[in-house]
């Protein structure tokens, strides 16, 4: 579905991504793991076409995304749940939600309607009229996910959705990701919270300094404690 091959990318001079390659199959949840600053967010931004410098190959169903502006990439079926949520402060919750709404594409397995979203996140309906940034952190996270779903994506890029969330919310997010997975969405999940990540992902890529240093199935990672300690700095808390 989504394929990155030898991607180099960065912001100013120098590269943050140094020949990164990974693949997300249809319906798969792929974990993108690594320490702070490893380049997870940068990878996501590269896919969305937000990096000022970018080289290599990025393909969605074989179609190259390199050089396309973000809004075109979005229309091709990619959606980003950004780190730090980035809710629009001057819009209400409902406006935030509906801003990027699009009719579902024909080849799509899951079609997201407003009702569906409200079923998944009832709080968004309740709080619909207040400004988006007045929501609490967890509510904002839900809104961000919901907002991305409204663009009817084929692949969801999820950047640290558990950041700043209460344990119970982290669990909720985990459940939501499960639901999305069951619904057949392909997901690329960057996460520092290993427990959460391991509960949903099928395949994991560990990256450091912008290149993949290990990849394998979730089970392999779960089994390999050394790997966890060396590259991820084992998570002790949730």
């Amino acid at each position, binding site marked *: 579905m989504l394929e990155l091959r030898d991607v180099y990318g960065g912001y100013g001079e120098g590269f943050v991504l140094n020949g990164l390659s990974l693949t997300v199959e249809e319906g798969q949840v792929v974990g993108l793991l690594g320490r702070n600053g490893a380049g997870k967010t940068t990878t996501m931004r590269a896919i*969305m076409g*937000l990096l000022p410098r970018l080289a290599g190959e990025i393909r969605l169903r074989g179609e190259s995304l390199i050089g396309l*502006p*973000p*809004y075109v990439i*979005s*229309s091709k079926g990619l*959606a*980003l749940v*950004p780190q730090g949520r*980035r809710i*629009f*402060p*001057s*819009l209400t919750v409902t*406006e*935030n939600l*509906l*801003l*990027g709404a*699009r009719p579902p594409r024909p080849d799509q397995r899951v079609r997201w309607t407003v009702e569906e979203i409200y079923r998944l996140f009832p709080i968004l309906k309740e709080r619909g009229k207040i400004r988006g940034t007045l929501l609490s952190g967890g509510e904002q996270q839900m809104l961000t996910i919901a*907002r*991305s779903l409204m*663009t009817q994506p084929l692949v969801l890029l999820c950047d640290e959705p558990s950041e700043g969330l209460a344990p119970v919310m982290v669990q909720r997010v985990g459940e939501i990701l499960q639901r999305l997975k069951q619904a057949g969405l392909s997901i690329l999940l960057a996460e520092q919270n290993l427990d959460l990540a391991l509960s949903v992902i099928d395949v994991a890529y560990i990256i450091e300094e912008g290149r993949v240093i290990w990849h394998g199935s979730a089970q392999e990672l779960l089994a390999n404690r050394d790997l966890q300690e060396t590259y991820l700095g084992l998570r002790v808390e949730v």
Partner: protein
Amino acid sequence: MPVNTASLVIGLSYASLLFLVSVGLSVVFGLMRFVNLATGSLYLIGGYIGWSVARSTGNFFLALIAGALAALVVGVLIERGFLQRLHRKELLQVCLTLGVAYIVQDVTRWIWGGDPLRLRPPELLRGSMELFGSVVPIYRVALIGIGALLAVLVWYLLERTKWGAYVRAGVDDLEMVQCLGINARRVFAIVFSLGALLCGLGGALGTPVTGVAPGTDIQLQLMALIVVVLGGLGSVTGAIVASIVVALVDTIVRTFWPEASFFAVWALAALVLIVRPQGLLGRAA
């Protein structure tokens, strides 16, 4: 006797003009956070180009289109050249658009000289008619119609479609909007240019009433500022309401205490803002 049909028509036709000039400013100012002190200049350009075209072709409607398009071009230039760079830097925007205003002022004086120019309404709309027992110029009545029509159009575009939200979101976080599949820059460009277009159209439409001359830009700029702030930044409904309020107050005060007219509108603005700092229909900041 005090407020009869005629004063109403006068007031409302003036309101139409004010609305055309101020709605662009309101959207650009309120939604895009861009302080455009060259709004009056766009009106001026619309008026002058309209006048020239009418003079050479004799066609009023062509004049309207030309005036609007000319302002559009200048609007696009401002948008392309500066808008993105000065995002959210209010002071620099003031300085820059003031610079644009100076240039426009000088160039127009260079080309059209200092004499006041005046466009004649089309044959069809000349003269006056009786309306509920008062004599009113036909053109004014037509102006009200056009103003109302455009007001509805703009209101629909910005308050009933997602365009308004696109713009506000784009100002908040351009990257994120694009990630949602919206070409925000184009939205900005279109909305900004649309504002400029309306301004220029206002200029061409207003020339039969106000004429154009050096100084018209400053007059209209000030009135537009009042309307925008009174109505509330970024609110189309606010701009409509404020245009009407300002125009009617202005008309009535002018009739009964002419010396105080320009003072009255400002006093009104000050009063309203003191009581309601966000304007009549402004979103609380």
